[in-house]
């Protein structure tokens, strides 16, 4: 009897240990720097805290997905020129090359007072410094009818590259020749300013080859194209004559079936609706009380990217309130990450942060699978105004769409993926 109880007890203990091991085997009880979100911002921050500290500061990266999937280049999946798998990069490089502990989980709560994060599957991790790179949350509830339409898989966004990108491609493939695809753009700021304009060009590229009687209609809540306007409009008219219709100042206020309802203009019915709603900082930043700019974006001290609402929490990427001229782009998130990482390494080492940080942005847009345009800028921290400003005379646009920049865009992708994750 005693022996049986002992065996049962040992079995139970073993099972508990096993369950515990599954849930928490790679979760350290304590860490110096915890990074939440493994996108362009978070992955880069995790790697650069390790690099800039000569691999001396411990880093834990918490990310729910198995691998990083790039939003840049994902419009080529809609065109049919690329597979989604070609946009994926494993987190193994961060583990193996840089000794970062990568935990596959969501963060359900942050306690800024206790300096801990709680994981959705249980357990918590203490931090000295926390980096939040949660990206954006799509506010589906700001357009009546959109949440339901999205839940049913009828109206997609595909604004975070992944299964939705593939699902939208399938909707385009199923569209009959002569069908209409409509994309709506919210008022700026939103993730990836040129993204919608690139998307309509690449959907039109697919239609031109596969279903030339079809049509693309772009409804923009903004008064005009928000990025690379002249270059996009020239490409639309010259490469896809009659295929793309652009309607500015159209703000979507509801969805019924396949019909878009606008604030002022007539309703519009299309076969495939692709509705991008207003966006705000990712949920964990909002929930932690950091979204102190219009309740949408996180205010930061730009010298260190520390939240203005909580000490020792640094927020980077699309979730922050932008300085003037600073776009919500992957390249910019990578740049934020390096400034934040250097500031964190400095502070944990007893040094003052770099007083003159620099940020760059380079954004390539495909107007056809082999033709690209770019916009670039360099931003310097201006102490007197405590913000980043675009360096006068720096940056600019492509002189015209060209094939050489298509090669550069692909090279950029390889290098920035390796810079963030390799």
């Amino acid at each position, binding site marked *: 009897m005693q022996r049986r109880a002992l065996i049962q007890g040992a079995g139970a203990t073993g099972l508990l240990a096993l369950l515990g091991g599954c849930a928490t085997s790679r979760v350290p009880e304590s860490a110096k720097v915890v990074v939440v979100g493994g996108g362009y911002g978070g992955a880069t921050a995790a*790697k*650069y805290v390790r*690099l*800039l*500290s*000569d691999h*001396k*500061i411990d880093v834990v990266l918490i990310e729910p997905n198995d691998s990083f999937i790039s939003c840049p280049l994902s419009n080529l999946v809609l065109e049919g020129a690329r597979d989604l798998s070609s946009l994926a990069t494993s987190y193994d490089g961060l583990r193996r090359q840089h000794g970062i502990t990568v935990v596959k989980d969501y963060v359900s709560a942050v306690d800024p007072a206790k300096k801990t994060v709680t994981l959705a599957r249980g357990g918590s991790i203490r931090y000295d410094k926390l980096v939040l790179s949660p990206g954006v949350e799509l506010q589906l509830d700001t357009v009546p009818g959109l949440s339901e339409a999205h839940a049913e898989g009828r109206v997609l966004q595909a604004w975070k590259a992944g299964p939705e990108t593939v699902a939208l491609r399938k909707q385009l493939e199923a569209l009959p020749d002569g069908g209409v695809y409509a994309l709506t753009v919210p008022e700026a700021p939103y993730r990836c300013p040129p993204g919608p304009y690139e998307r309509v060009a690449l959907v039109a590229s697919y239609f031109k080859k596969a279903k030339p009687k079809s049509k693309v209609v772009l409804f923009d809540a903004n008064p005009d194209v928000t990025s690379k306007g002249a270059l996009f409009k020239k490409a639309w008219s010259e490469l896809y004559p009659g295929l793309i219709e652009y309607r500015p100042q159209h703000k979507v206020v509801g969805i019924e079936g396949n019909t878009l309802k606008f604030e002022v203009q007539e309703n519009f019915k299309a076969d495939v609706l692709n509705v991008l709603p207003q966006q705000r900082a990712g949920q964990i930043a909002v929930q932690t009380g950091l979204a102190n700019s219009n309740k949408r974006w996180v205010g930061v001290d730009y010298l260190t990217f520390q939240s203005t609402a909580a000490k020792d929490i640094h927020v980077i990427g699309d979730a922050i309130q932008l300085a003037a001229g600073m776009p919500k782009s992957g*390249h910019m998130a*990578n*740049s934020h990450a*390096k*400034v934040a990482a*250097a500031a964190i*390494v*400095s502070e*944990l*080492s*007893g*040094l*003052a942060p*770099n*007083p*003159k*940080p*620099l*940020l*760059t942005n*380079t954004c390539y847009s495909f107007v056809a699978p082999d033709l690209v345009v*770019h916009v*670039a*800028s*360099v*931003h*310097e921290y201006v102490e007197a105004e405590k913000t980043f400003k675009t*360096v006068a*005379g*720096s*940056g*600019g646009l*492509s002189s015209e769409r*060209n094939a*050489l*920049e298509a*090669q*550069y865009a*692909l*090279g*950029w992708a*390889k*290098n*920035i993926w*390796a*810079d963030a994750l*390799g």
Partner: protein
Amino acid sequence: MKTLLARSTLAAAALVASLAAGGALAQDAAALQVRSWAATCANCHGTEGRSSSTDAGLAKLAGLDKAYLVEQLTAFREGKRPATIMHQLTKGYTPAQLDAIAGYFASQK
């Protein structure tokens, strides 16, 4: 002589210990600043200048001669070397910053 040697050894050991206690960073703020500026090039030219995609003209910068790098960066900045994007980006940096960045990449192997 023996005492002096022992003292300097002790001093060196104390310095190492203080570096370790202070966050273990064997670099100063100025070096970290230059490293951070150079990191702004990594998105296109690879981490620490070790590009993984040189086929598209995104040159590997690590280990190149500093004078050559300064010359090229200056030529871009002054519009003397044609480019799609580098003539725009280099105008965002001062000549002193470009010089420091070139020195950093030259020191990488």
